[in-house]
């Protein structure tokens, strides 16, 4: 039984020609007839980081420059995660044509969403490099780990993406709630704030998988004294997510009848 479930996931990965093509096509369509194409994503990301930096400087009276690399990486990872969540809403209904006319594996549609965000994030990487340099940190080869960390995060994201797609297929009410939930996750995750060593925020971070992801990636890319335990916790979580994806993937068996 478990072997068959793994087989289903392996089949989806094996459809790489289809999901990679569809993801690249999505970006072409999304940015067609624009002057900058997908680089608009980098411009938007840069503007967001600049705006937030100014706001933090004015409101919190903080020396923003030293926080800039941290904020840039946090926002890159957060945008990646949030977009995967948001684009999974009603995914199976949106992809009705494909599902009713081809034998495409349902998981391939989720991998396509993740892969599309991986591709888009690659355009944002130069912004992170600029922020690291402006922040006074010497860019190291560790920055090259960023695409890999996004890829690993993306592998784990297939599970929540599947849950969101299934929930919003069964009840459209969930589609109304999830954007607010994602916004809430932004505030309870250490994207704009740093996890203190004690207190409620520390407790919140210790039970928040998004916090684990952010901390693991930031440490890996920026800190010279990265603690393996943070990375192991993150990788362990991704492993559990993959297992969860495999275990619940049979739930997609009859979704074509619902759409």
């Amino acid at each position, binding site marked *: 039984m478990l072997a068959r479930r793994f087989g289903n996931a392996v089949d989806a990965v094996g459809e790489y020609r*289809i999901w990679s*093509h569809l993801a690249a096509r999505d970006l072409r369509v999304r940015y067609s007839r624009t002057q900058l194409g997908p680089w608009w994503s980098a411009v938007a990301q840069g503007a967001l980081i600049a705006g937030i930096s100014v706001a933090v400087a004015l409101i919190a009276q903080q020396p923003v420059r030293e926080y800039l690399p941290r904020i840039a990486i946090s926002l890159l990872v957060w945008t990646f995660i949030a977009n995967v969540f948001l684009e999974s809403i009603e995914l199976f209904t949106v992809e009705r*044509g*494909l599902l009713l006319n081809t034998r495409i594996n349902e998981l391939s549609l989720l991998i396509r969403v993740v892969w599309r965000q991986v591709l888009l994030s690659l355009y944002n990487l130069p912004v992170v490099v600029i922020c690291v340099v402006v922040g006074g940190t010497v860019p190291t080869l560790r920055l090259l780990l960023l695409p890999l960390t996004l890829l690993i995060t993306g592998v784990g994201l297939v599970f929540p993406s599947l849950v969101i797609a299934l929930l919003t297929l069964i009840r459209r009410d969930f589609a109304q709630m999830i954007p607010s939930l994602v916004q809430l996750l932004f505030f309870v995750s250490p994207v704009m704030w740093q996890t203190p060593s004690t207190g409620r925020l520390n407790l919140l971070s210790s039970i928040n998988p998004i916090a684990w992801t952010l901390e693991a990636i930031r440490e890996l890319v920026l800190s010279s004294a990265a603690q393996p335990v943070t990375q192991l916790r993150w990788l362990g979580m991704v492993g559990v997510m993959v297992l969860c994806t495999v275990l619940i993937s049979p739930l997609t068996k009859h979704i074509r009848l619902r759409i």
Partner: protein
Amino acid sequence: MAILQLQSASVFRPTLGSDRTNKRGSGNAVLNSLTLTIERGERVGILGRNGAGKTTLLRLLAGIFAPNDGNASVDGDTATILDSGFGVEPWLSGRENAVSRLILTGVPRKERAEILHELETFLDLGPYFDEPTRTYSTGMLARLVFGMATVRRHAVLIVDEGFGTVDDQFQDAAWLRLNSVIGSTTTLVMASHNLDQLRKHCSRGIVLHKGRIVVDSDIETAIGTYVG
């Protein structure tokens, strides 16, 4: 040798107001315990009134739907022409849409150029083939979707109904091409209200009524029962 096989296969659709697709109970049976074997080389016509379950049966045979109950097995290289207009992206050109369709249907890269050339010649869209499809007229779009749907030859072909609105000038070419595609396939399953087409292409006929097979015989007997 059986190429498509159903054993007591049932398909339930969630009823309005209920989102449950249970094996039994609240689900509304679209296909009810069908047992059917289609041998390699057979040419089968499916008849039935609207809502009889023809399209669902075709999707089941194509392996797109999985049965809620029973078994369905597909053994062979199967192509479907169900909703020929699916997947046309208005912001992409006709050529880009065609390439996309070829990738989605698993055509190897080395074969694409030749198929594309043949498609371009058949469509006769001129420079419009490289323009975004949102600039196409309804007739041009119909040409494109029909051409894309009939671009490949397979061992098993599953066809649903007509192929949209094409202009009169293109109608004959479209029928010729469809007939050629159907003619070159070994095994055919075709659902249609067009009795002449069914007579022309099929030797076996199946009449569906409310999700059940009421007649499975030669095509003339099946048409006679359906019309009568």
